[in-house]
């Protein structure tokens, strides 16, 4: 049977890929925040992590920031506030 040349369906990716920020070599003294997306129990899990990181690695926990919805990006003004007050952020999404 003959072969066929066809187009692939996916196309390119538009937004240049972002590289991860380098991990800090030392956590002690770093300011840690939680960005809570409002999913049930998310902040509970992240708070436990934050407590352990403070206890074991010496981070300074600066508080929980609440974004408007799990389904929409973090508000720019909230992001700016977090950037000003924290060096590290715990965040995530789950149900």
């Amino acid at each position, binding site marked *: 049977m003959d072969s066929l*040349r*066809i187009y692939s369906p996916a196309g390119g*990716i538009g937004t240049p890929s972002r590289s991860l920020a380098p991990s800090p070599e030392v956590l002690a003294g770093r300011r840690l925040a939680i960005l809570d997306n409002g999913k049930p129990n998310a902040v509970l899990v992240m708070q436990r992590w934050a407590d352990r990181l403070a206890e074991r690695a010496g981070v300074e926990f600066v508080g929980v920031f609440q974004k408007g919805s799990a389904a929409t990006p973090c508000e720019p003004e909230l992001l700016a506030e977090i950037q000003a007050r924290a060096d590290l952020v715990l965040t995530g999404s789950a149900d």
Partner: protein
Amino acid sequence: MTEAQSVESAAASQEPDLLLAEASPEALLDMYEERGWGDGLPLIPPTAERVDEMLAAGGEAAPDAVVATLAPRFGIATRRILAVNAVLAGCRPGTFPVLVTAIRALARPEVNLRGVNATTHPVAPLLIVHGVAVDACGFNAGLGTFGPGNRANAAVGRAVRLVLLHVAGARPGDGDASTQGQPSKYAYCIAENAAATPWDTYPRSLGIDAESAVTIHCGENPHNFHDMENDEAAPILDKAASVMATLGSNNAPVSSAEFFVVLGPEHAATIARKGWSRADVQSYLFERARLPAGMFRESFDVVQYRPWQKALLDDDLMPITDHPDNVRVLVAGGPGKHSCVIPSWGMTKSVTLPLEP
């Protein structure tokens, strides 16, 4: 290189870039399955000839013109890529402008496509075709508009899904976390039955005065309701309200979310014959689709409500949506006293655009 140049560079693809070793439907399906592409159903090979024919139906715009960038993969939907997916789906070239307009609508920020694609909710975008394009392109606005059986409804609806899979990256388990999915994730396309609409057509009710238009509403599968007995508007709409007032949809915790109420022609005729306008229907459903505020509070910790809703007492009846304008009413389907309600995913708004190739 600027970001715009980077986008154009990534978009440029003049020649077919895959070799299908054996020109058989089975070989194409196997190739796609190996690459994690496709929707599991047989496909039409997107050869240069077929893609060029599809592009020609969309007017003079350049094949590499970018229609949209689609989340969560941020894939570039050029006209050529859309034509490839339209061919795969079995679209006739005449329907290509509908697909292009639908993708343009999906990329509007108010749709929140990244959330729509990535959520655990089963949401699928419903494409509604309005106006001259319905008959001109062979869409079915009458009996069985939601399916099955009409090529334009099925193929264009399927093409939208293929674009979301291939370009937007919304693959189950990858960019699409939908727990169970839903059948409308295969194809979800209907047409407005303008001839059976006793009011302005849906686009005209929004102030859009175009020969043809396309609406995108991101929501659940249709929830049927039927009324075979009543010759008054209120009892028919009470059934719609009963379907709307459920704790099980995302409309319950997100009060700004829309409902699409798709009335069958006979229900619409009965309602209008009693002197009800579309606005009357919206207001009545806003009034009737309610549950005690305490029930919402018991069921949801995380909500998006207006301040006045939060001030209601537990025994006060709270509307399932916070404004009558969130109840979107149109007519589609054929004979038989059935209608349906399509709840929203929640953090999304419908978009209606004039048809543009």
